[in-house]
């Protein structure tokens, strides 16, 4: 079992969701986040005074799936969200120790 965390551009979320559904991903968790990496921020102006915006809005998509789906999922995410410009985001893969479905008490693969 693996967890995939993908940080993507917010306007790519719908495209990504549809692409993941077509390869059989059955659930995901999405959060609005902010951060910076190589893209850095930009300068904005308010009433004559400039200020730096370093934290850029992004969306984080979290998926938990069987280890054998990881490669295909990463490929799908890249295809769906890539624009080729700086700031496209990153994909992290983490190991998952256990899963429990709260309603039924099912565990691990059954609970994905």
């Amino acid at each position, binding site marked *: 079992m693996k967890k995939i965390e993908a940080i993507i551009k917010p306007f790519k979320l719908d495209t990504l969701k549809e692409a993941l559904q077509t390869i059989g991903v059955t659930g995901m968790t999405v959060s609005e986040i902010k951060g910076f990496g190589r893209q850095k921020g930009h300068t904005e102006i308010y*009433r*004559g005074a400039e200020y730096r915006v370093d934290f850029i809005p992004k969306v984080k998509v979290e998926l938990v799936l069987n280890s054998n789906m990881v490669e295909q999922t990463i490929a799908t995410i890249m295809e769906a969200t890539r624009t080729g410009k700086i700031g496209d985001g990153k994909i992290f893969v983490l190991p998952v120790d256990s899963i429990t479905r709260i309603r039924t008490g099912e565990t691990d693969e059954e609970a994905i």
Partner: protein
Amino acid sequence: MNTADINLSNKELPMKKSMARKAVLPLLTALLAVLPATAMAGEEVSGSVAMYVVNNTWMLVATLLVFIMHLGFASLEAGMTQAKNTVNILFKNTAIIAIGLLTYAMMGFNLMYPGDFSIAGFFGFAGFGIAAPDGVAGGIAYADGAYSYWTDFIFQAMFAATAATIVSGAVAERIKLHSFLIFSTIYVAIIYPWVGSWKWGGGWLDAKGFYDFAGSTLVHSVGGWAALAGVMLLGPRLGKYVGGGIKPIMGHNMPLATIGVFLLWFGWFGFNGGSVLSAEPGLVSLVFVTTCLAAAAGIVGAILLSWVLQKKPDLTMALNGALAGLVGITAGADVVSVMGSVVIGFIAGLIVVASVMIIDRVKIDDPVGAISVHLICGIWGTLAVGIFSADHSFLIQLLGVAAYGAVCFPAAFGIFFVLKSIFGLRVDEEEELQGLDVGEHGMEAYGGFVIK
């Protein structure tokens, strides 16, 4: 005879408030002679009565328009400040209209329009409370058929509260609520009507020929001087000026700020249009035109200068530009040409952008730009009368501006200073960071949302 009556009214009506009041007695005698005949005529309404009804109705509509300006101020100030202080801003605006109306009834009206001055042209007080003269003296004869006593009161009362509201935006996000409310009460009950009497009450500046049609100085600068005094004693918001630089604190709701400015513009048709003090068609419509064009030119001026200076067109500056044009034209809306109104508005739009930036650079923290809009553009508009109207003297206009500054700023500074030594002016650091909504009121404007 009817036609003659109407013509007479039209000629007499554009008189200023004070003159209208002085003219009551001789006219009353004349009208008393005429009125029994009118009453006898039964269902037939005489021309002068018809004019009176039309005039008075317009003055009441204008009163409603000035009333809605308070919602405009509330929306603008809330939109231009942080979400965590929204309840506090709305609360202050709600309290101020109440304080303004009640104190004006209690003493303001009779302080501003004393009739007779006890210190010649300088101070007069016609007693506490309001009461209409009996019969026609409080009605058709009160202001030569322009409006009734009650209309006079309620129209002027709506103005009074706006002067205090101007302060609210400038001192926002850090002032203690009770200190602010006490200040507003004293300022709107005593200072505003007292200095107003110098011009509109027929006092010494009126005698000198000083002109302020609807209050660039009497309302806007009077509020603006107090705003400046308050901000100077309060100091800037935490985190505004750090490390020698300016760190902007963004307003949280631009749609709300925009609604506020449009409501203020809407109300200004009554603020200026009602200051004709009758429904005289030519003057009221001219004032609508000059008022509107000045606002439009103010927007254009502010857009151009902010675009050049900032490389980006700034919405908040465009909004301030509209108000700058409106404040600028208020002193001379009925005595300048159409072209004059455009130039006055355009220059006001340039002034407000420059002023907002300069005031920020000298570390006077005014979240909504009230000092620039109301004080600086109020001064400009008052002086502009002396430039764009051949009938008025620039030096007298300057004298008026200086006189109001010389009294209002020290008065406001003094009141704020005393309040500061008794109660303190500023909320503590923790409350300011957490927001005045929770600190002063124990509630949030956007319950359930996380936008701090």
